[in-house]
């Protein structure tokens, strides 16, 4: 199927620790199609983080082929990866990773800055994204002035503002209380219902329940 957003074909990632070679991912093959909500689940040490780095184009596979929205990732240089990330992926991290001492609206507008969008349009789109997530009254708040749940919603707004083909959420509920965590999962659900493709990476089976398909990782291999 050519129209898959993510195609991993026999992907391995091996880390060299001195003379030792430590495989973190071994011959992983999988596909994610537009509109899917997929959870990648596994205990710690199963290769989740490596998977996240590869899928997020922060790292390149050692072997195998990774096609993201039709682009072979292995052939890109660092600038090419940055451009691909900028245009295709919206990240949601466990620890929010908002820019410190920067207002919510500027945080959300920053990905557009690196796409070369004009300031006027950046502000308008960031405002719209924040308002859609119910943060219209928090535009000028800095991260330290927001609760964890609010910060994660700002992060989701930042992931959405570029209209990416893929939203990649890495333990998005890990730092949140159960109430805020449930809200964020509901939010991801709504986004998926609106047609977004979402890949959720987690160790928590309850969180993975939110997805429509689960991929289980163990010791660097897909087990189910």
């Amino acid at each position, binding site marked *: 199927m050519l129209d898959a957003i993510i195609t991993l074909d026999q992907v391995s990632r091996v880390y060299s620790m001195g003379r030792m070679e430590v495989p973190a991912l071994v011959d992983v093959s999988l596909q994610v199609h537009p509109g899917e909500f997929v959870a990648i689940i596994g205990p710690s040490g199963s290769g989740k983080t490596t998977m996240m780095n590869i899928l*997020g184009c922060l790292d390149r596979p050692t072997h195998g082929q990774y096609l993201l929205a039709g682009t072979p990732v292995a052939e890109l240089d660092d*600038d090419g990866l940055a451009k691909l990330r900028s245009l295709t992926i919206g990240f949601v*991290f466990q620890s929010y*990773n*908002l820019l410190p001492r920067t207002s919510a609206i500027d945080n959300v507008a*920053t990905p557009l800055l690196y796409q070369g969008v004009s300031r006027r349009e950046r502000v308008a789109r960031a405002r719209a994204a924040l308002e859609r997530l119910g943060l219209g009254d928090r535009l000028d708040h800095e991260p330290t002035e927001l609760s964890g749940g609010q910060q994660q919603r700002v992060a989701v707004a930042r992931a959405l503002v570029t209209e990416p083909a893929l939203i990649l959420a890495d333990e998005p509920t890990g730092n949140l209380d159960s109430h805020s965590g449930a809200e964020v999962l509901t939010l991801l659900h709504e986004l998926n219902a609106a047609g977004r493709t979402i890949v959720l990476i987690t160790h928590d089976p309850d969180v993975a329940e939110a997805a429509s398909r689960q991929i289980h990782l163990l010791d660097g291999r897909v087990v189910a």
Partner: protein
Amino acid sequence: MTFAELLRLALSRLRTSRLRAALTMLGVIIGVASVVALVGVGQGTTANITSRLAGLGTNLLTVSPTGRGGTTSTNLTVDDATAIGQLASIGAVAPEISTSQTIKAGTESETVTVVGTTNAYASVRAYDVWQGTFLTTVSVDQKLRVVVLGATTATNLGLGASDIGKQVTIGGLPFQVIGILQAKGGTGFQNPDDQVVVPVGVVQKYFVGGKSVRSIGVSVAKADEMTTASAEITSLLTERHGLSSTETADFNVFNQTQLLDAATSISGTLTLLLGGIASISLVVGGIGIMNIMLVSVRERTREIGIRKAIGARGRDILAQFLVEALTLSLLGGLIGIVVGLAASAVIGQLAGWGFHFNPSTVVAAVVFSLAVGVVFGVWPARQAARLDPITALRYE
């Protein structure tokens, strides 16, 4: 990213850490300010020396006796001066003899340099008459007891424009004031405005005695004939004094331009030296910027990771940190220029040579502080740009 975007980012960053930005800039401010101020002082000194020397007279040669003679034992005479005046290359000649006397006007009195000379003195020494007249051929030839007052002397004696024609006494003898000179604006030792001018014969007759003069001021007609004129005077006086060519001359022809050149070259060197020393502090300021930028890159590792994850390329990060360093150094440079110009204006005012604004110093200071920003900002910025996003994102 456009430059305007980068500048906006840099300024908002500096706003969030104002104290640190201010302290970092302080190094550059001090460096640039001291360069601008010291170079300004150097140029002020040069201009001051030049204008004072030029004020002594243009194309001026001074003939003076050699040896350790006092004013009375010299061998130059008024006739020597007259003979020099016959030479083709000479514009004007004024023999000079001076003595220190007490001058009194009413109840005011002071000790002043009395210069005995001829009517040519004004053009040789570049004096203008403010009120009244200068010495005339008649008053010089007939040795009339008339006096022309220097501007400072007139003020000290409480004499003004309405006092032309009044009587003053010099060394107890009555003199008539016929004129007051225009101020030249010198200060301190050998103030050219604090003297009085009387006919040369009067000084010889009443105060000094003898036929000799202390020196002969010669104004050469054309600037490019200075050397010719000097040679002509030398051969003329050698002949008149009956000296053979092997004997050491008993006089010396001194060229004002040489002194001017020497003084200008010395103060130019001094300016360069002062500027060079001040530049060292600018370099130290630059190192301060580099230090802070390196700390900043370390502190903001996670921010850099986030920016890279959401689409920043290495060059975007490089540009961001470089523009930050440039903003610091340029802002510091501009403040430093203002401080430096203010300082050199104050110093110029106190020293009495006024404010000499030199645009090229300002341009050089701006260029220099930009260079400091680039040189000391590039390395930290490259460190930031090269960070691996995965490592940077996990950095605590």
